[in-house]
């Protein structure tokens, strides 16, 4: 079995019978994967190369320029962090742009949904908030834009971190100065012949990642809340069973909320619903996939059809009229697979085109109209569906999402104290942030689910985002009743407040919410984040974004377990710095553990040790 999800395994078999190749098949064809790549000791940075280091101690021990394995591994890792930070931050930039257009009345359909949050954030930027909301929003958007290319000083949201944490960053010289600047500087430093000290490169990697977590990602989260509303607990459904045999099934897949919010509106348009009926369907059934799915799940309760490894098999159901994609984690294989069915792959971002896709470019200023056109296109595709090829093998599972920091505080009765008290009393032993992707090198969703279960059994409250949260939702861990699977302490807290033991906090940029939450707890206790009984994990990670996330999480003081091996093992020095030396520098480090249960054990041990440190 390649997946934990019943329908995925059934659809994999269907694909096999139909001669359709999926990610698992392609992985098999890649194996064994390039050893130099796996170990991070291939350097393609200049054209004296490509160079490789012999991992078995023999020659060559240096690249043409003289770079050792340490320098090569550090440079490669630095560039992965930069790419990941760039992806999150460019997403953030789009949200700022949309906020500006909305405040100027230039983006029909978009408006300030959370004025209270607008005022809070604007006040952080020292903007006069006693004005019309659009004026405030305009100044805020312009203020945040400055954060991207800022010349001096530090980015605004970094001030939310506990004082002790900021002191560590200042001492190490890694306070992020500008969201784009750190990424650009990483590209500069890793150019041939610039930063030739592995530790110095890694330090800048920490800084670059912080410009993501406390910069680009946090901007994306906070400004999306202002534009689309701050999430509140919401009930929904998950897995491929959310697809309906008798409706026009539209999946939005990718990462940003700007387009998907408009698609949600369009899918409720009476004229379009009438058109769907005219075309023989009972209605329009919208679902989300990956993080754009999480965005509209969190704010609108739109059902989720799956996470990263669900995208190809969704087409195999034969019941999907259109997959509308924006950016990030969208497999290029989709258009090829879609050729075997009636499914339209509709690309919408000028940044992300797909050979063989239908491109209907999205622009915020005409968002509503374009969304309607896209939905209309999907509806018109419904009569082309071949009913004989339709297979929706499973029933959906109920779930709750929408746990923004604001929503958690509200659920706890207006303040964080009950959570802090529960931690102090030992009812909740600690908090774990389990985040990240899917990776066909791991059985789909298995590591996410096994680790999450083990953690809640041990009275650890689990905060999740992205593909992990969807995985946990599929096995019924995101409902209040799941507290029955938790230890007695966590169970009692969940029951008292009516919350699930695993809280869905949003998309991958929303890991910034977790930073805000742990900062608030650390501030309330007057300690640093690294003193808290908190641990992180990315059990099935695969993307460069995950590398940036993991790095800003440890740079923020949270011990983090990686469940797939990062391409760094070729340098013993870099490995030692990341899994050992980092502790002395930033009070947190990485561990690599492919077994999710052993990974959870590492987190539990860490949480126990931190409790001891706090005298709990």
């Amino acid at each position, binding site marked *: 079995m390649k997946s934990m999800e019943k329908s995925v395994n059934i659809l994999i078999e269907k694909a096999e019978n139909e001669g359709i190749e999926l990610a698992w098949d392609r992985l098999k064809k890649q194996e*064994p994967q390039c*050893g130099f790549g796996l*170990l991070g000791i291939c350097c393609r940075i200049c054209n004296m190369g490509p160079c490789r280091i012999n991992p*078995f101690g*023999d020659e060559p021990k240096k690249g043409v320029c003289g770079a050792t394995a340490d320098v090569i591994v550090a440079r490669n890792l630095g560039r992965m962090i930069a790419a990941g930070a760039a992806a999150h931050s460019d997403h953030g930039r789009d949200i700022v742009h949309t906020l500006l257009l909305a405040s100027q009345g230039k983006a029909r359909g978009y408006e300030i949904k959370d004025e209270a949050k607008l005022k809070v954030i604007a006040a952080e930027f020292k903007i006069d908030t006693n004005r019309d909301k659009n004026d405030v929003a305009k100044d805020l958007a312009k203020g945040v834009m400055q954060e991207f290319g800022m010349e001096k000083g530090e980015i605004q949201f970094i001030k939310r971190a506990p004082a002790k944490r900021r002191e560590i960053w200042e001492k190490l010289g890694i306070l992020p100065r500008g969201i784009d600047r750190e990424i650009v500087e990483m590209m500069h430093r890793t150019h041939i012949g610039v930063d030739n000290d592995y530790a110095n490169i890694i330090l800048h990697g920490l800084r670059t990642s912080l410009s993501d977590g406390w910069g680009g990602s946090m901007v994306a989260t906070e400004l999306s809340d202002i534009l689309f509303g701050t999430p509140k607990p919401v009930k929904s459904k998950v897995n491929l069973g959310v697809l309906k045999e008798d409706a026009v099934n539209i999946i939005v897949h990718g990462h940003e909320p700007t387009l998907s919010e408009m698609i949600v509106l369009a899918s409720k348009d009476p004229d379009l619903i009438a058109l769907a009926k005219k075309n023989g369907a009972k209605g329009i059934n919208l679902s989300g996939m990956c993080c754009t799915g999480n965005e509209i799940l969190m704010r609108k309760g739109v059902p989720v059809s799956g996470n990263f490894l669900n995208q190809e098999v969704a087409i195999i159901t034969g019941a999907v009229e259109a997959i509308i994609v924006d950016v990030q984690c969208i497999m290029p294989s989709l258009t090829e697979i879609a050729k075997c069915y009636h499914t339209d792959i509709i690309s919408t971002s000028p940044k992300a085109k797909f050979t063989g896709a239908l491109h209907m470019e999205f622009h915020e200023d005409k968002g509503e109209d374009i969304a309607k056109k896209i939905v209309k296109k999907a509806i018109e595709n419904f009569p082309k569906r071949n009913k004989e090829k339709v297979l929706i093998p499973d029933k959906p599972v109920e779930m709750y999402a929408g746990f923004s920091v604001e929503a958690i505080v509200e659920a706890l009765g207006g303040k964080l104290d009950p959570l802090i008290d529960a931690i102090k009393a030992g009812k909740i032993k600690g908090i774990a942030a389990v985040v990240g992707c899917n990776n066909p090198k791991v059985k789909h969703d298995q590591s996410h689910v096994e680790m999450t279960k083990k953690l809640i059994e041990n009275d650890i409250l689990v905060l999740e985002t992205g593909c992990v949260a969807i995985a946990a939702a599929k096995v019924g861990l995101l409902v209040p009743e799941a507290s029955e699977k938790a230890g007695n302490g966590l169970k009692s807290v969940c029951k008292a407040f009516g919350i699930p033991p695993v809280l869905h906090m949003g998309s991958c940029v929303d890991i910034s919410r977790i930073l805000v939450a742990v900062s608030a707890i650390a501030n309330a206790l007057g300690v640093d984040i690294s003193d808290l009984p908190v641990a992180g994990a990315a059990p099935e990670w695969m993307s460069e974004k995950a590398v940036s996330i993991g790095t800003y999480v440890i740079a923020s003081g949270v011990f983090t377990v990686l469940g797939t*091996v990062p391409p760094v*093992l*070729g340098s*013993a020095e870099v490995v030692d710095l990341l899994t050992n030396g980092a502790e002395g520098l930033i009070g947190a480090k990485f561990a690599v553990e492919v077994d999710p249960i052993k990974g959870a054990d590492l987190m539990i041990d860490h949480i126990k040790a931190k409790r001891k440190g706090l005298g709990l």
Partner: protein
Amino acid sequence: MKGIFIDIEKCIGCKSCEIYCAVSHSASKQIFSAIFEDPLPAERVKVESYNAFSIPIQCRHCEEAPCVDACPSGALSKETETGIVAMDQGRCIGCWMCAMVCPFGAIIPKMDSKVIIKCDRCPDLDEPACVNACPTNALLFGELSEVMKKSRKKAAQITISAIKKEISIGGLI
């Protein structure tokens, strides 16, 4: 008789054969742990290049193996059943005579253990690790007669196509 054959047109010099040869001769058989073993595992195949081309070179397990003739201690022998030139580590005295006479330089003296190492064709695997690891199928493992048959078929296709002009001349190059 089975052997490892090389399609020189397909070798891109990626050295994946070297990496997975060493991994397959490690204690853990796993790349992420093999690189931390003591002693470090070593590869028995080396990719060499000439002009713009590269070629993996390992023991050819010669029918008339000069290394076997040169070995004074009886450490090297030609196995009749498998056809491989086998090495008995206990008997090797590290005189490097075999390395000296090997026309391919495929015998590797190991100074730390004072014995030679060479391709053993991965007796525990269905297919040698180097062949399995080659991403372009430049390395083939199979019966000599089958490989020769394949080569003849290819030659026939090229020759006939050229004469009959069924495909463009570009297909030849």
